[in-house]
Structures are given as C-alpha cells and as structure tokens.
C-alpha cells in the first residue's frame, strides 16, 4: 500500500475520525480524502501526472497535507518547502528537480520569479474553489513501492542543497516498523513538531495515517514559545511525541514543562537528530512513565536504529545508545580499512535495507549500502553508541547543515575576502559561528551578512554570531585551523566592523 492509500483506506474505515488537528482547524479522514481528491484533479488539469514532481511551498497546515496527498494520488512526488524557506532556495529546488507545478499561498505566490514561472506552472492555493467540489472520480494512481514519493532537500557541502529521494517503499518500511513498535491505534494523537521539510515529520504523519490516528500539528511559530509548546502536549492530549532533543530541552528549561504533572495521555516520547544529554533524559524519566525512545537515521536512511531508554542508561554519563537495527535494516560498523572495529575501536556506521533512499536527485542511484559518515562504537550487548562525525556536516540545535554551504553563502557577499564557519557548544547550546576577513574598504556589518545569507539560506542556517577578524588561523600546511578559531571565540578577540 502506498502513502496515499493509507489515507484512502483510513477514510473508508472511519471517515469521521480526526486525521489532522490544527493550526487552522481539524480535518477528518473523510474530508482529507475528498479534498485531496479534488485538488488532485486541479493538479491534473495543470498537467501533473505519474513521475512528475510538485513543489509545495507552504507553512505547516492541514492544507499542506491535502496538497501532499493530492500529488501522491497522481503518481507524482512532492517536494516540501516551508514558509520560511527563502524564495531563492525554493527557485533552486524547483529548477533542480524539474518541478512541473509550484503550489503556494498568495503571499508567497507573488514572490515567485518570472524565470521560475517559465519553468513551472504556479498554483495559487488561496483559490480554494476546489474545496467545495463533490466527491468526483476517485484519483488513486497505483504506484510500485520503488517509485518516488517525495524529495527532501538537505544542506549540501558544495554550497547548494541536495535532494534526498525517498520511495513509497522506503517510507513504508520505517512507518510500518514504528506503527508496530509503538502499537499506534486509531485513538492515538501524535504530535508533529518537525517541519515537513525534515524527515522526522514523515513518521508523525504517516504512522498516524497508517493507524487511522490523529496527527496534531505544532505550528512553526511555537518554536519561539516554549511555554505554549509545553502546554500543547496537555491541550492536544498527545499520546506520542517526537522531536529533536533541543525542543524537549527548551520546553524543560524555558517552558516549565516539568512544573506540571505529565499528561496522562502521553505514552511514548521519541527523540532523534542529535545526542540528548543524559541529565535531561533523567528529568524526563522522573516526570513521565511514558516510554522514552532514541531513534537514529540520517534523512538518507530514515529510521534505521532505535533504543528504548532503560534505568541503566540513566546511570551513564553520556547520551543513551542509538541502539539496534530497526525497520528491517542491516546496520554495521567499518574501520577505514574495511574491517570491523573491536573493543573500544570506533568505525563508520553503514546501513543497508528497505529504508535506504533511492539516491540524490540528479545523481547516480544509491545501489547497496549507504555510508552514513557517523562514527559509532559497538557495545557489548550488540547496540551502537554514537561517537561523532569525521566531516563538516553538523547538527545545530537539531538542524542538519553543511558548514560548506554556509561558507559559500557568506563568501558570495562582495565585502568578504575569506570566511570560515564552525560550531561551538553542544546540543541546545550549540551555536553556528562565522569568521570573516573583510576586503579592504569594506563597510558591511553583521546585519548585512545575515541579511545576505537570508537570500539563499533558511533561518536555521544563518550564523548565530559573526566575528570580523584580520586573518584566519592556518596550520603550517596552510589548512584552516578550526581549533584555533574556537580559541578566538574563547578569548573574545573580535574586531567589530567600523
């Protein structure tokens, strides 16, 4: 069964059950089914058919889900962008994947350039006449499990984003695992915290749809309101929560989550995307009797390992392990020489199986195992501990990004002579720091560089702090000395633009 058929089947079983809760109202399975069908017919009128791509540029909402379902029903694939994705990045994504249609609400629709309009049809989602259409002819294209369902654009090391192509079968493999592992039932209410552009959201949406449960959307704005985010858990009677640890830490630290008893509805808290400092996991375990599960998997492999937190983990001085294989994946570690690590040795985590992506859009297909670039240690019980990475892909408060892409954005500013970007701190305290050597006679300040980045980068990729330096520290071989850059921060030797 493909991703859209999960909704069609749930609607047939119980059309009155809530499928999606807010922002902007509730959507029942029957309505979701009917509206997705009606929008599919509009998209078909714009020429969308099997094998096409449709970019959906829209804030998280029931309407975005209707659009995603409409695209899938035509045998096409959706490419999500959030309302905060800059227009330049959206244009790049649409051109890169050859989107046939770009769907956007009026306010964003008006930003779409003439150049992009010549490549793709643009559908203004403020025109909702289709919402009042009757049932119409069911649109339910039968797809093979290896066919493309969606493309998630992630940060690319060479300066442009890259599209991770996920098939219906890839997604179903980890969704089925999650539904089984968590025992998701029609009465469940799953929180959706992650934006639709991040892979975490796929589990929230489709595990709910597979079980005929409700997915409760956390609006993007609540990221700035930890107290309201904590309140959301109670108000929405959430039974399964899934987010990056940073969001949970923010709720505990700034949102008074722990001041109130945990909601009785809560039975599982899932987290992924970055190491979760164990002291915060201890606080969560004291607060709720819900299961605590650490999920692991880059966008390219989806969820491929998991670990349920045990009392023994809480005694550790490091984060809980990333655990054992999930979703039918085969997972192992290799040293650079190809051999398996022993004892305290570490190795790169490699994943093979049904959840591994089709490939990056426009690149050779991913045949065989995927090398994650994540360094792990094999524990005595057969599970894995996450150790770190050996490249410049970093996680800043749960967001994955390539330092090279941020450096490329800064370097393209006319006042930048040399730039380097590093991270400092860990978990929720992690900050993205940029160091810039200005050209002679340059007069740009911090804000000018941030503003320049905002043209091509989403807000989470804009450096938190920018330091102007007279030169970048280099090793004797002339390579950038990143460790010395951290010293620059610690000494607070910064030269403000003047």
């Amino acid at each position, binding site marked *: 069964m493909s991703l859209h058929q999960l909704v069609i089947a749930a609607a047939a079983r119980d059309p009155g059950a809530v499928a999606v809760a807010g922002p902007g109202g509730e959507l029942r399975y029957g309505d979701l089914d009917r509206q997705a069908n009606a929008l599919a017919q509009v998209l078909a009128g714009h020429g969308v058919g099997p094998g096409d791509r449709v970019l959906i540029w829209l804030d998280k909402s029931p309407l975005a889900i209707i659009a995603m379902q409409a695209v899938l029903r035509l045998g096409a694939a959706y490419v999500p962008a959030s309302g*905060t994705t*800059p227009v330049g990045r959206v244009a790049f994504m649409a051109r890169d994947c050859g989107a046939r249609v770009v769907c956007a609400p009026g306010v964003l629709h008006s930003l779409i350039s003439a150049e992009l309009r010549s490549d793709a049809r643009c559908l203004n989602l403020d025109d909702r006449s289709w919402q009042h259409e009757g049932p119409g002819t069911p649109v339910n294209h039968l797809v093979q499990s290896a066919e493309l369902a969606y493309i998630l654009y992630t940060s690319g090391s060479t300066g442009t984003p890259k599209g991770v192509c996920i098939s219906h079968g890839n997604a179903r493999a980890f969704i089925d695992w999650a539904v089984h592992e968590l025992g998701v039932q029609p009465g469940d209410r799953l929180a959706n915290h992650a934006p639709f552009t991040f892979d975490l959201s796929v589990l929230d949406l489709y595990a709910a749809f597979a079980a005929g449960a409700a997915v409760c959307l956390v*609006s*993007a*704005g*609540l*990221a*700035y*309101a*930890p*107290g*309201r985010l904590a309140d959301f858990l109670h108000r929405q009677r959430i039974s399964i929560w899934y987010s990056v640890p940073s969001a949970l830490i*923010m709720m505990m630290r*700034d949102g008074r989550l722990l001041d109130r008893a945990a909601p009785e509805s809560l039975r599982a808290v899932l987290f992924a995307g970055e190491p979760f400092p164990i002291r915060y996991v201890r606080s969560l375990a004291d607060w709720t009797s819900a299961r605590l599960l650490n999920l692991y998997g880059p966008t390219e492999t989806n969820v491929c390992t998991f670990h349920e937190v045990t009392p023994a983990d809480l005694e550790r001085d490091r984060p809980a392990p990333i655990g054992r294989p999930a979703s039918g994946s085969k997972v192992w570690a290799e040293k650079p020489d190809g051999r398996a690590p022993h004892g305290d040795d570490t190795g790169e985590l490699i994943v093979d199986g049904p959840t591994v992506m089709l490939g990056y859009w426009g690149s050779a297909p991913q045949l065989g195992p995927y090398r994650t670039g994540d360094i792990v240690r094999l524990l005595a019980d057969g599970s894995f501990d996450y150790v770190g990475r050996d490249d410049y892909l970093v996680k800043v*408060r749960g967001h994955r990004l390539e330092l090279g892409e941020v450096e490329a954005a800064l370097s393209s500013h006319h006042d930048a002579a040399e730039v380097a970007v590093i991270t400092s701190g860990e978990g*929720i305290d992690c*900050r993205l720091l940029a160091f810039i050597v200005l050209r002679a006679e340059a*007069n*740009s*300040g*911090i*804000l*000018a560089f*941030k*503003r320049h*980045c*905002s043209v091509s980068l989403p*807000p*989470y990729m*804009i*450096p*938190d702090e*920018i330091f102007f330096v007279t030169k970048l520290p280099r090793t004797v071989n002339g390579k950038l000395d990143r460790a010395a850059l951290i010293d620059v921060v610690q000494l607070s030797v*910064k030269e*403000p*633009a*003047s």
Partner: protein
Amino acid sequence: MTPEPSESEISARLIAFIRERFLDGDAAGELDETSPLLEWGVINSLNSVILLSFISEEFGTPYLLENIDATTFKSVRNITMMLSDGNQRSRR
C-alpha cells in the same frame, strides 16, 4: 507612578538592546523597526528567550505569554505592538 513608555520609546529601547546584544553594536545602523528579525537570523529560538527576559525586566512583563509566537518576533514593530496592547489591557 511612572508613565508608560510611548510606542516610539519602546521601539527605541528594543532596537538598542538587539543591536547591543545580538549585533555587536550594529555600527552600520542597519537595524530598524521593520527589519525582518527571524528571516535575517537576528532572532532565533535560543536568543528569543534572552529578548523575552529583557522585555520582562525592562517593561515589567505587560506582555501576555499566550500571545507570543513567531509572529511576535517578526520585527521590532510587532514586538512593540504586542507590548502596547498589553499596556492597554492592563490599564482596563
């Protein structure tokens, strides 16, 4: 009783704080009332907490927590509007 600050005063104090705390002084003076703070990466989910605690100390928490979300932090003008709404409500 100290008179409540005017909207222009609130804006000026907010701009001064954001410049000093998050923009290293903003010597070029580019930040104004309408600068999109979230879009340009001036305010994020981390430092919004710092800004809120400044607001609470500086203006005596007239803001209502349930009214705060990303829209509030879109610009200095939006924050000012939220604060002056709060002032009016607390006077009633």
